[in-house]
């Protein structure tokens, strides 16, 4: 699957009630790559993430136009079960949101939903997931302790482990480091780097250095006039977007002239 199109957006527009939040976004997310979406607040970056795991359906009256295709299948077609879709598309949220349960139960949550009950099987999954999220060494002796006692950075890596335990194909990350200090941010970035061989990662970030450091592809989004929908201004390999963007707006944004 290397380098192939994992998720494709075709002419996607999106409405919250009557408000058009996104217009005509066409974009391909490559398999086993990290794609970053950058742009000022309110430009629809996070909305794109929500459309890929259909989380916007939990937020009231919304409407999607266009097609979102994953592995050749329209994820909005009737034959797609949203619960199954979400087990294939994991999400890491802006603020770490571990459940008020033990570390073990957090990671085992997803596998248990799928009906895995055997203790040995769950232990194997929990250890593997925590190792992948680079958290195992820190928590292996206190798996039965509450996840709420971990630091912010540890909680976020726990949330990554919790998502990995479900064995998703795509991982969405919505500003995963915005609530974390630089050291914790560094650890999350290292984790992302290690994960990209096996997963398709789409990350929304306000931090341009972060996008430049970790992404293979970068999309720049923008609301040009207040009240207009967000549009994808430019998309391409990260190296090109950050060194010689085609559009003036992109250059202005990455050089810090606004946003």
């Amino acid at each position, binding site marked *: 699957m290397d380098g192939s199109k994992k998720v494709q957006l075709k002419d996607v527009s999106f409405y919250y009630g009557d408000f058009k939040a996104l217009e005509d976004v066409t974009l391909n997310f490559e398999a086993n790559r990290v794609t970053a979406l950058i742009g000022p607040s309110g430009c629809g970056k996070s909305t794109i993430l929500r459309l890929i795991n259909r989380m916007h359906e939990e937020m009231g009256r919304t409407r999607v136009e266009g097609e979102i295709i994953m592995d050749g299948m329209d994820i909005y077609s009737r034959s797609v079960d949203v*619960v199954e879709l979400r087990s294939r598309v994991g999400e890491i949220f802006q603020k770490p*949101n571990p459940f008020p349960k033990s570390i073990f139960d957090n990671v085992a949550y997803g596998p248990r*939903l799928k009906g895995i009950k055997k203790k040995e099987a769950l232990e194997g999954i929990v250890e593997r997931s925590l190792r992948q999220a680079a958290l195992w060494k820190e928590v292996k002796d206190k798996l039965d302790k509450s996840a709420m006692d971990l630091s912010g950075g540890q909680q976020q890596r726990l949330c990554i482990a919790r998502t990995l335990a479900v064995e998703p194909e795509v991982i969405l990350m919505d500003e995963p480091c915005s609530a974390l200090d630089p050291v914790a941010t560094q650890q999350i970035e290292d984790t992302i780097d290690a994960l990209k061989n096996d997963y398709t990662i789409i990350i929304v970030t306000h931090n341009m250095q972060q996008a430049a450091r970790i992404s293979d592809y970068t999309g720049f989004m923008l609301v040009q006039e207040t009240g207009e929908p967000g549009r994808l201004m430019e998309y391409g390999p990260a190296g090109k977007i950050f060194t010689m963007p085609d559009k003036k707006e992109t250059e202005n944004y990455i050089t810090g002239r606004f946003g």
Partner: protein
Amino acid sequence: MSGSNSPGERLARWIIFASGVLAIGVIALIFVFLLRDSISFLQTYSLVDFLTGRNWYPISEPPVYGLLPIILGSLLVTVVSIVIAVPLGVGTAVYLAEVAPGWLRELLKPLIEVVAAIPSVVLGFIGLTLLAPFLQQALGLDTGLTALTGGIVLAFMALPTIITIAEDAISSVPRAHRQGSLALGATRWQTTSRVVVPAALSGISAAVMLGIGRAIGETMVVLMVTGNAAVMPTSLGAVLGPVRTLTGTIAQEMGETVFRSQHYYALFAVGLVLFIITFIINWIADFVLHRFQESE
């Protein structure tokens, strides 16, 4: 003048301190008062006979104060009301907080709170004139005034408390927990049952405790619909027979006793027993809750 030692600041601190001391002081005084009069009774009557005696004949000669049937009567009515009110109340709270559309929730919540405002004597009246004859006919009983009747009416009384507080607890579970669960591929029901309700458990337990407190302390309803016969409940079948409760005993007999007679003091001892039972239930609930939270 806004420093931490300004007069306004000191006054506020003093008022808060005083109200705290007052609340605790009043509870302590109630306890001391109950204890003092109960001791007066227990100096003239054996504690063992009081707690384990099977007959309550306060006006026979000599009087017999066997509280056991009345303690069991209270517990029986309370257990019946809990068995009915807890699943129904928590279920309704989950429905309101997690399933019901917004407009229905806005409609139902105030209505449920209105139920809490119905005076207990009115509920007792309904129990007496509608529920009791219905149960008597439907179950073919000698009388409709039974522990079951009392339990049902008490459950109805406890429901608004349980629903309102449990709903608040469930609604205040952060949205991030729900999102996290849904994003992992959980269904709405799995999210509710495995994340939201466990996260709200301390609030739900508080709701249940308050509901139970309301049921065990309620007097008017049980006086009206449980039949008030101090019969020893010897089996589960006693649910379908009349019982008498601790609260009902005090309310009914206090007006007929001679001031500072043995009977008068005996009723204070009954009050003390009620106080201790309530205290033990609270303590057990606290303990269970604590254990549960630690294992989380």
